[in-house]
């Protein structure tokens, strides 16, 4: 049992190592196209300027985290308001959906004109692209407690605040985390896209410079950096969810 679990966990890594080895081998025989760097070239580019990456991933990370935080606050407040004031439910939801559907490729240059190419623009974009998954999740979550459970709290003569604490919030958590897990990578990618419109530092800035300098290894490294940040954003919330939502484990469909 335990041995097979280790094999299962190691298998993806083995596959990755194998693929890298194959690419390296093709490169050595001279058959790799020029836009596809070999693993050794990537490594060479990386150790050439190792401080470049933390220096640029850091700003992207904090801008994405700030934007995510603002969006989380707004979404939870909006969903909470929509749950209490029913008349506000549809307008708030529609506003979130509308903002979500505006293409950021179009808004970024406009925001850059308006706010400049500083952190404000990139954080604003991160808020715009990450708010709706969280709003959607929270709005669904605040309605997740069923009528029987609400009736039970009513029978206990629980105050509105107690009902919120003991019933509404815990019932909403799986939905809120579902939103967070989608929103965190979205915030990272939003910041990187916004950095293309001009930024001093950040993964998006490195990506753009490497592109104009025709430096394929660096372009690829910046793609990997973007994936690490976006995947990390997802991973953090998946982990928190796993630790918090212990009662809602996935079950197999065929059970």
């Amino acid at each position, binding site marked *: 049992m335990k041995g097979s679990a280790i094999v299962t966990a190691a298998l993806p890594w083995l596959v990755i190592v194998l693929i890298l080895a194959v690419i390296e081998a093709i490169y050595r025989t001279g058959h790799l196209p020029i836009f596809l760097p070999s693993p050794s070239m990537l490594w060479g580019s990386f150790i050439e300027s190792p401080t470049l990456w933390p220096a640029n991933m850091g700003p992207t990370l904090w801008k994405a985290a700030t934007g995510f935080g603002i969006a989380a606050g707004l979404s939870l407040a909006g969903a909470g308001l929509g749950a209490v004031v029913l008349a506000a439910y549809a307008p708030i939801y529609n506003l979130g959906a509308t903002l979500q559907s505006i293409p950021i490729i179009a808004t970024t240059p406009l925001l850059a004109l308006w706010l400049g190419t500083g952190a404000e623009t990139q954080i604003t974009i991160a808020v715009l692209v990450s708010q709706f998954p969280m709003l959607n999740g929270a709005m669904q979550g605040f309605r997740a407690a069923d009528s029987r459970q609400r009736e039970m709290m009513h*029978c*206990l003569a629980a105050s509105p605040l107690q009902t919120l604490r003991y019933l509404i919030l815990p019932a909403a*958590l799986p939905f809120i985390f579902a939103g967070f897990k989608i929103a965190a990578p979205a915030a990272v990618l939003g910041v990187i896209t916004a950095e293309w419109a001009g930024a001093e530092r950040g993964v998006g800035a490195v990506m753009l410079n490497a592109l104009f300098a025709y430096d394929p290894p660096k372009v690829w490294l910046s793609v990997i950096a973007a994936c690490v940040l976006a995947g990390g954003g997802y991973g953090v919330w998946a982990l928190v969810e796993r630790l918090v939502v212990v*009662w809602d484990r996935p079950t197999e469909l065929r059970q």
Partner: protein
Amino acid sequence: MSRDIEIAQVGIQFHQRGETVIALEDVSLSIPKGSYTEIIGPSCCGKSTLLRLIADILAPSSGKITIGGSPPAEARRDHAIGFVFQQPTLLPWRNIRQNVALPLDVVGRTSHRRSDRTPDQLLELVGLGKFARSLPAELSGGMQQRAAIARALVLQPDVLLLDEPFGALDEITRQKMNLELLRIWTECRTTALLVTHSIAEAVFMSDEVVVMSPRPGRITARIAIPLPRPRSLAMMRDPAFTVAVNQVREALFGDEAETLPGGEAY
């Protein structure tokens, strides 16, 4: 402490898609304190509605209900009513002990309502001592319903209302649960009112069986059960038991009772 329940000329209508359903009409019933009563009747005759009126989940369109002299809303705020729903309705994120202790969290540390029994003692009482730390999803339906009963008892309710609490369980489990419920009621001496679908069960358990009929929902018979307490399964062979079962069956089916193939599960 237990309280009596007074129901005087209560009626309630529901309006749904332009239609008016008279769920209950002119229902009067007095239930002495400390007694055990079961309500029986066909589906949709308003049994659940009656319980929900007593528990202040619904308000009557006409008539009046009092619980120990106070209106249901007051009794509810005073945590005098324990309610066991048809489904266990446990909170899935709380373990069994935390679920049983939920009413204690709501009333606070200083309430006079807190039972002398701790949640752990109540779990022992309903036979779940070993499962205090399990999550509801890890327990069978019958065990979950027992936890729901323990939760309803943790504030020492003056009135215990149970709406088909064992309806979802198989016959054998239901039989066991009924015996346990009688034992628990004997210990707690609260006023108990339970909705059931089984004639034999109603007669075996109750001091009085209330028979209801639908369209509009009303009470058609009240049958006192002269069996002594404590009850034992052997009493099911008592002639008085058979007489009472036949009385209930007649109240439910009238003349039809003659032509029905003699089983008690209708």
